[in-house]
């Protein structure tokens, strides 16, 4: 062997040994260094979890009457393993099922597909669970259909009928409470990606109490983990845990009161409509002024809370969010933002007291007040002469407030504000926490707005480009002389509080908005001597055997910035509103002492049909005046006068609350016969009946 051959052989040998060492290194990396990672990957390839949902906990009212429970429905289910092994992949069988259930074939097909199996835009109705569990095509089959499926199994191979638990809102005492309770639905991809431990095919809370207390209500589903092969056939079972039922939620709501509040709100809307108002939406709330507990809460328009479990059609789902139908999905009490109008004068009283105005003095209430270059009219341009401040509240004089607010605005420097401006009105509003959430235990609450100096600066920074280039940026419909002038003004000094802004704020108009729930919280604070309470709907979470898991109590969030004297003044003034003021008509002859304030908010803008928007009708109140227990607020958007539309509605609510018939009180008919909502927790039973029915 010559030298070159020998050298070549050595080089080749080194090369080959290097290759083998490379393989060994790679093998070491895959199996030892990265082994755990690949073990996990392999497990996710082989294992499939089959989820048996836990029984969801009940939601009951304060006396134990079920608001949400579980009903047994008859599900027609498909076994995908069986269908897929049929020669046509189950097409013929699913066709027969669709005819039997009177559904379209494509609906049935989609309902039996895993979401990953369908193209991107055609996933609606897909099954979020796994293929190893029965996939429900409907949960509301009639016994007749279920029998057909079971008895003619040769015609329906792979199809079965089985009883399933359905979430059901029984509507005891005729309640709807859709916005309060919410609804449940299938887990979404987003839920699965979240940190909460959700499982596919589980039902989870979507809105309302169902989502707020989902972690308690849901329970723990049973999990059966199976190991499958490449053909997805089960080779063995690796883990099996039993479902643990969810806990129950006891709320402070009373079904009978809730029903009455819903009816009173619907009635107020009806009356407003009868008077030619649009009355497109409304809210009504009853709150315990001493605890913050919500005793009833209604939103108009509403929807059937059971419609989700029945399976919404596309049109039904669209209608829930459509402007034309008034967006029934929106919960007005805590998501709707409205100008509070004259109900806000309670805040202005606190501001005036802080600014040093004598609450017991008299003030002028002319037909109009000149504010800078503009004349601001009293409500319906009525002149009342010189009246006491209390009387001014009772008859809801606006000009009195224009004068005070204008004076204070000038004192703060007008358009050249002092750096240490007092801003009594804005700080009073902030003291009432108008610009904060109430903190209620319900999701998606809106935050009110106090249009103070900072807010105006922020607003201007965002909008000045639009207003300073209004001719080019605004639509043709927005080019009216008034709007063009407004835009010019906004461009010029939109970052400053103008006299008009200041005086409008004092009567709850202009840019100030809040939710009906916020106003309820504010009036409850006035009623209870100043404490701002966090409203709560939930009272306690209990196990089936009654063991308390968690007591839910609202926090005291602060107190309103008012002295005892100011609060006493407000008590007297708000009582006079009902005895001899704007609400006297609505409450004439009412045997229980009620205090409150009407509000009629002008709304700028137009409806879709071009008509001018009607006023927002408010009535915010509490009772009994001498020892307040309940705050009741009703709001009807585009409902007309607060004094008629809403105050009358609130009277009906008090009638139920106190057991009033005409001008007589029948204490035994009162919702809470001893004058207070119950503090004891009821026993939980799905069979608990409404009292007196």
């Amino acid at each position, binding site marked *: *062997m*010559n030298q*070159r*051959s*020998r050298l*070549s*052989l050595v*080089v*080749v*040998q080194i090369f*080959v*040994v290097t*290759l*083998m060492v*490379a*393989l*060994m290194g*790679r*093998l*070491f990396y*895959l*199996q*030892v260094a*990265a*082994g*755990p*990672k*690949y*073990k996990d*990957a*392999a*497990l996710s*390839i*082989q294992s499939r979890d089959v989820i048996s949902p836990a029984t969801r906990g009940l939601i009951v009212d304060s006396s134990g009457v079920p608001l949400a429970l579980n009903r047994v429905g008859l599900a027609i289910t498909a076994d995908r393993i069986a269908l897929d092994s049929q020669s046509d992949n189950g097409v013929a069988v699913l066709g027969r099922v669709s005819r039997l259930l009177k559904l379209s074939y494509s609906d049935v097909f989609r309902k039996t597909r895993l979401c990953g199996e369908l193209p991107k835009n055609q996933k609606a109705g897909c099954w979020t669970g796994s293929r190893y569990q029965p996939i429900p095509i409907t949960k509301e089959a009639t016994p007749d259909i279920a029998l057909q499926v079971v008895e003619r199994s040769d015609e329906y191979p792979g199809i079965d009928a089985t009883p399933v638990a359905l979430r059901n809102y029984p509507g005891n005492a005729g309640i709807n409470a859709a916005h309060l309770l919410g609804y449940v639905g299938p887990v979404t991809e987003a839920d699965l990606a979240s940190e909460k431990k959700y499982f596919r095919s589980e039902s989870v809370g979507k809105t309302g109490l169902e989502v707020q207390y989902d972690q308690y209500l849901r329970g723990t589903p049973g999990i059966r983990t199976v*190991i*499958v*092969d*490449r053909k997805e*056939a089960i*080779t063995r079972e690796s883990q099996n845990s039993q479902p643990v039922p969810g806990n129950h939620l006891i709320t402070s709501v009373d079904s009978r009161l809730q029903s009455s509040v819903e009816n009173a709100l619907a009635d107020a809307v009806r009356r407003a409509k009868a008077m030619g108002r649009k009355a497109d939406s409304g809210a009504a709330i009853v709150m315990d002024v001493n605890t913050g507990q919500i005793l009833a809460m209604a939103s108009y328009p509403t929807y059937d809370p059971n419609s989700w479990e029945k399976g919404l059609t596309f049109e039904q789902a669209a209608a829930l969010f459509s402007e034309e139908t008034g967006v029934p999905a929106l919960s007005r009490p805590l998501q709707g933002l409205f100008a509070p109008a004259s109900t806000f004068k309670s805040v202005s009283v606190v501001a005036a007291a802080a600014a040093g105005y004598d609450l017991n003095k008299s003030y002028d209430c002319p037909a109009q007040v000149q504010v800078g270059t503009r004349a601001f009219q009293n409500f319906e341009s009525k002149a009342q002469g010189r009246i006491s401040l209390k009387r001014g509240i009772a008859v809801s004089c606006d000009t009195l407030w224009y004068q005070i607010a204008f004076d204070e605005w000038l004192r703060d420097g007008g358009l050249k504000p002092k750096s240490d401006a007092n801003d009594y009105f804005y700080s009073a509003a902030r003291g009432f926490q108008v610009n904060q959430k109430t903190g209620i235990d319900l999701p998606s609450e809106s935050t009110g707005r106090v249009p103070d100096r900072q807010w105006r600066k922020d607003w201007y920074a965002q909008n000045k480009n639009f207003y300073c280039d209004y001719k080019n940026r605004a639509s043709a419909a927005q080019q009216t002389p008034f709007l063009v002038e407004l835009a010019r003004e906004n461009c010029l000094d939109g970052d400053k509080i103008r006299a008009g802004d200041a005086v409008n704020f004092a009567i709850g108009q202009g840019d100030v908005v809040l939710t009906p729930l916020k106003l309820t919280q504010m009036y409850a604070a006035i009623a209870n001597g100043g404490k701002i309470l966090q409203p709560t709907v939930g009272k306690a979470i209990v196990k089936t055997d009654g063991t308390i898991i968690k007591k839910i109590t609202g926090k005291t969030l602060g107190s309103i910035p008012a002295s005892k004297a100011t609060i006493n003044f407000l008590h007297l003034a708000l009582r006079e509103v009902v005895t001899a003021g704007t609400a006297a008509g609505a409450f004439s002859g009412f045997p229980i002492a009620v205090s409150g304030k009407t509000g009629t908010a002008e709304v700028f803008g137009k409806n879709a049909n071009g008509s001018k928007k009607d006023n927002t009708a408010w009535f915010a109140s509490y009772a009994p005046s001498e020892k307040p227990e309940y705050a009741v607020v009703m709001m009807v958007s585009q409902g007309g006068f607060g004094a008629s539309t809403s105050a009358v509605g609130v009277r009906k609510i008090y009638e139920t609350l106190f057991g009033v018939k005409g001008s007589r009180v029948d204490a035994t008919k009162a919702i809470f016969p001893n004058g207070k909502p119950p503090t004891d927790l009821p026993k939980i039973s799905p069979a608990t009946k409404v009292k007196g029915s």
Partner: protein
Amino acid sequence: MSLNNRNLYRKKARGSIFQGFDPILTGAVVALLIMGTLLVYAGTRDWYAANGLDPQYYLKRHVINILIGALLAWGTTVIDYRLLRAYTPIVWAAGVLGLIAVLIPAFGSTVNGAKAWISLPGGFQIQPAELAKISIIVGISMVLSERTHDSNEPSSSDVIQALLIAGIPVIFILLQPDMGTIFIISASVVTIIAVSGAPTKWVVGLLLVAAIGATGAAKLGVISDYQVKRLQSFVDPNADTQGSGYQLRQARITVGSGGLLGTGLFNGPQTNGRFVPEQQTDFIFTVAGEEIGFMGSGLILILLTIILIRGFTIARRTSDPYGRLVATGIIAWFAFQIFENIGMTLGLMPMTGVPLPFISYGGSSMFANLIGFGLLQNVHARHLA
């Protein structure tokens, strides 16, 4: 010391049917055959049972293949390979004929996009390309070791002759197409030419041509779609979840999930769930990776390395140039096929369908491997320097 040992073997072996058997080489091969048998069984048992078939179907056939291969190995060990040298032209021509037959539709059958098999009656198939490897190795070894002139080294014309001998069968394999086998043959041919002492320019030139050819083939589309796909999925295994990328990913996961000790033979859920295809043939190393872990599959690598190093020792020690080149060719063939197969399983090499020597199920490949083993023994026994 080592000299004494060698003499000892020769004395002991002479005249018996075990004449010339190298205990290290033989021990490594037997150990691999046993492990391979167990792995083939583990890779097919559950799946066949689950589908209502004979769970020992592959086991039985694999054992038969080994027995036939052992006979072939024994035959190639005991005959004087110089006799084989005389028959080299016939062996070569038979190999080429087999490759042509594969391309004729009446004989050939297509598996995984390649016409690589001849179907025989009774459900048997043979893969001529496996046996063609031996034809090529003995063919060019003969040309490069014949000395017709004074020089002790092959001339350029010898090299050209050798390239023709290798090139003709390679063209037919290219038509199947079987890129894995072409890679292995090319690497072996270049190795034999280098070790033959041929002019350096040829060695360097051939390496360049091989490199250019590989890139050019991919660009010009000589490589068919399914091969490009396999190559692409090598670059990005997540691109194609059900095709070849899926297979490479599954293979890597299966090997990785075995960890240090493995799940135990017959207990691999990935293997038993058959998430990796072809796991008794091309992807057999995944079964080892999952079920016997790093300890077991590392042992396979060590045994294979022992065979290769032992082969190099045999090539270095033989005095006969022809025997040295045959031994070198066989070692190069084994080495590159091992690297291609395990490298593919571990994600180091693109996906091509070549079996793992001495382990994978497959008659033709088992016969070729054991014939190669026999030839190594033969060279070892007869031509010690």
